[in-house]
């Protein structure tokens, strides 16, 4: 069993951190305990009276959907996790949560599935007990399975009115050829429609991935490490370790620029997304950290491009980067909504030119420091309450299974130089690695 303790305070990290990069940005003491079966427990006691946030982070997401016809399964399975066990059938499970006044839910993304709940400190044992039961003993009938498949289709349907959803679907399908990032977390529509027929596979999925070595339990709030660990041992200690390791295909290097266009059936303003293949998340290599800085430097509301297109010329009403952390190399995306279709090419050129100029023109040190300040204050402001602390941790725990990765990442940010920005821009903003998707109303 290991234990790490890091102490800091919000204040000192903000005052000193950005200057020297020596302080930890994550200001709370935390404890890591590993059970023999591979389950990891991260406890973060805070002084928020009586509130506890519990999150079970599974390192499984749509990235794990490597078999044909099975896209969307990680998310679908997350739904099934609410269908109950022999001991606590769904109705009973819901009753227990209701009596405890729990705010409970789950979400799935490319690299993770998270089950989260927030509740009063007195209900900690109840929650750890019922959650342990469903992770180990989930049971559901074929009929429940088919009913839930319809609810998932309903989710696809409710999302379908949004043009950005469609654009991301097409962008990923166009940009990737082999890696499962080719599909969104919802999955391909054809696979969603076929889900009612996949009951047997759902049991296989559960046996493979709902295992302690894929799981990390995060508990934040009015708790002690001792109590959390003893309860986790009591209820989760006998969960048997699994052995499955997925073979996730690597994406071959893209060799030529790609593009796609979507005809939207409704009146809308045109959109453009420009994406380059990017690096995977790392708290050691500077690549992704530099990309986070570039997202802020070049495409945030404080950027030159934003000032020009949105505020001065007013040709664009929405402009934003989507540079997200992923376990495997993903996409660096910039999206813009253009007010007049005739300006679409102009806006595209401005965005491309911005990418190009990062390679040739050094950014100012002052701007770089402003971005670093922004990142640190953003982080500090986000840690409002146990739930938001746990939310933040879940993201990083899915990537590296430890809060320490946050401190390492922010130290990396501090170390990024003007030269790094230029070098990484040259490395990643390569025409042959580019994909452009546009969307406009059907004429």
């Amino acid at each position, binding site marked *: 069993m290991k234990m790490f303790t890091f102490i800091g305070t919000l204040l000192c990290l903000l005052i000193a951190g950005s200057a020297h990069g020596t302080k930890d940005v994550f200001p709370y003491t935390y404890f890591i305990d590993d059970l023999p079966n591979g389950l990891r427990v991260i406890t973060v006691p805070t002084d928020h009276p009586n509130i506890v946030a519990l999150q079970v982070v599974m390192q499984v997401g749509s990235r794990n959907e490597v078999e044909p016809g099975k896209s969307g399964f990680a998310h679908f399975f997350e739904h099934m996790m609410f269908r109950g066990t022999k001991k606590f059938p769904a109705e009973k499970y819901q009753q227990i949560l209701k009596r405890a*006044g729990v705010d409970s*839910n789950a979400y799935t993304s490319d690299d993770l599935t998270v089950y989260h709940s927030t509740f009063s400190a007195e209900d900690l044992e109840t929650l750890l007990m019922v959650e342990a039961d469903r992770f180990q003993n989930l049971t559901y009938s074929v009929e429940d399975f088919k009913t839930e498949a*319809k609810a998932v289709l309903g*989710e696809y349907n409710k999302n379908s*009115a949004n043009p950005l959803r469609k654009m991301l679907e097409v962008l990923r399908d166009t940009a990737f050829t082999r890696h499962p990032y080719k599909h969104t977390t919802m999955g391909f529509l054809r696979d969603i429609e076929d889900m009612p027929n996949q009951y047997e596979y759902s049991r296989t999925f559960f046996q493979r991935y709902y295992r302690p070595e894929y799981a990390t339990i995060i508990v934040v709030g009015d708790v002690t490490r001792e109590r959390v660990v003893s309860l986790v041992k009591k209820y989760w200690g006998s969960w048997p370790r699994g052995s499955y390791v997925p073979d996730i295909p690597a994406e071959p290097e893209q060799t030529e620029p790609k593009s796609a266009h979507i005809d939207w059936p409704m009146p809308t303003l045109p959109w453009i997304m420009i994406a380059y293949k990017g690096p995977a998340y790392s708290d050691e290599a500077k690549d992704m950290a530099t990309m986070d800085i570039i997202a*802020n430097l070049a495409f945030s509301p404080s950027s030159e491009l934003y000032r020009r297109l949105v*505020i001065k010329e007013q040709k664009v*009403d929405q402009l934003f980067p989507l540079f997200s952390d992923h376990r495997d190399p993903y996409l660096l995306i910039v999206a813009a909504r253009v007010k007049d279709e005739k300006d679409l090419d102009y806006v595209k050129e401005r965005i491309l030119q911005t990418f190009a100029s990062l390679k040739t023109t050094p950014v100012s040190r002052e701007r770089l420091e402003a971005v670093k300040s922004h990142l640190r204050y953003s982080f500090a402001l986000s840690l409002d309450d146990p739930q938001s602390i746990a*939310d933040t941790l879940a993201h990083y725990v899915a990537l590296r299974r430890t809060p320490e990765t946050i401190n390492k990442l922010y130290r990396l940010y501090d170390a990024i130089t003007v030269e790094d920005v230029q070098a990484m821009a040259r490395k990643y903003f390569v025409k042959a690695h580019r994909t452009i998707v546009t969307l406009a109303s059907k004429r």
Partner: protein
Amino acid sequence: MRHDRGLWLAVGIIMVILGTLVHGSPSWTASGAETMHGRGNVHGALPTMRNDDRGPVAALTMIGGDGGRSPGNTLMSAPTPKRPPSHGDAGPGPKIATVLLPGESPLVSFRILFNVGAASDPPGKEGVAALTAAMLSQGGSRQMTYEQIVQAMYPLATSFTAQVDKEMTVFYGTTHRDNLETYYRIISDMLLDPGWREEDFTRLKTEAINFLKVNLRSSNDEELGKEELYNFIYEGHPYGHHNRGRVGALEKLTLADVKAFYRQHYTQANLVIGLAGGYPPDFPERVITDFRRLPPGSPTRLKLPPPPPIRGLKMRIIQKETRATAISFGFPIPVNRSHPDWPALWLVRSYFGEHRSSNSYLFQRMREIRGLNYGDYAYIEYFPRGMFQFYPDPNLARQQQIFQVWIRPVEPRNAHFALRIALYELKKLVDRGMTREDFEATRQYLSKFVNLMVRTQDRRLGYALDSRYYGIGEFTQYVRRALARLTLDDVNRVIKKYLQYKNIKIVVVTKDARGFRDAVASNRPSPIHYPAPKPKEILQEDEIIAHFHLDLRPEDIEIVPVERVFQ
């Protein structure tokens, strides 16, 4: 990077990303901007969830969302409320109201609230309240251009956002106390000494129009239906237009209109200053002194006519090209948070359709058992942007509220059944009331859940401002005490008194509007089809629901092309 309190999704509306609120720069917050409380990974990766959209997704979805902290409107002035604990100030002029929650946190939260909103939009100028708020929160001050403000706020990673509802406009933001001086200087100039630049006006007016035309009409069928339900219910009433305005009126608005609205309504008498967190002890006095630069004004009272009566079932079908069918329905209720029956009705709502909770009755009957859609909920207070968040935003207080049921999009072939089952269940609730077991379980749930509603400093401040408006004291204590006193008889009495199933307005968003109208008006049976066998008792109930009579004649149903909505 993850949460981004620093990343943007700007969206004229808002956005943010991940994790929590938007901090960033005012640009993407403010008035048309929306804030989102999300979690999950961000950028590009859209997480999907069982019963929710958070995080990145939410951020993205928001683009199609009701953008903006939604504006509200109101007219007249101060509502009904009694005046609870507010601290006054000394000095000349009317007393400036304050709500102060000092604490040890390194963060300082501002909520500067004016008791004016979209219900005060003059006829023909619908949208002026929201556009005024946008000019203050997303435009420049006299000292700084908007661009300069964005640059100055950026290293602080903070934002300044406006939310406009019918009777309230609130400007809010949180800063680290390291940066309090810089932040306060910027925002106080924005509110007290606006720049009124023509280029800001053009940008924000276009943004407001695009919000209605593009974001709502063409990107978010759910919010489209929910917002149009309010317009349908409040036709001819000061609440009868979207908080962002009407497209036709917005197109004609001028900078002079906005300035006139500001002069008339942004007064000391309409102002409540809310502060929370680790500010210095003398800070509130300084803020009060600064805000004395506003004209004194006089307390006005927003006198609202009663909502128009609804006689029978009335349906408005919005026709648009879309995959699924979105449905909302409701009717006015004479109960707001200051009413003695509010806690009982709030409990009934939670039992019947708690927002985004799989515990509630409707969710169980429609989604869990039948897989009809993603979720089904009930409300007794305005709750915009519900597809992006789990908790209601504060400072949407209103004198008049509606009871509402929100049915998330269903497959068109099941839409008629979905409407029938929701009304059938509502009828059962009204006819039979709640059982003791359900009453006790819901009471216990809410007594604890209420703590989570105010779990952040900013939310506590927002709720304190609302409690001041409604005259009910600290929210969690008020709720817990009221719940402790409630009896089963109380809740069953309020069900009979305030809920009903005969006089309701319904809004449907669908592609085949005529087909749906014909099916509904003819009361044609609408069997539901399942991919797997169902228990006999469910099939028997389905048979009853498939024939459940809806008293809608062809003349009770109107079809509106989406282009005309919000026009």
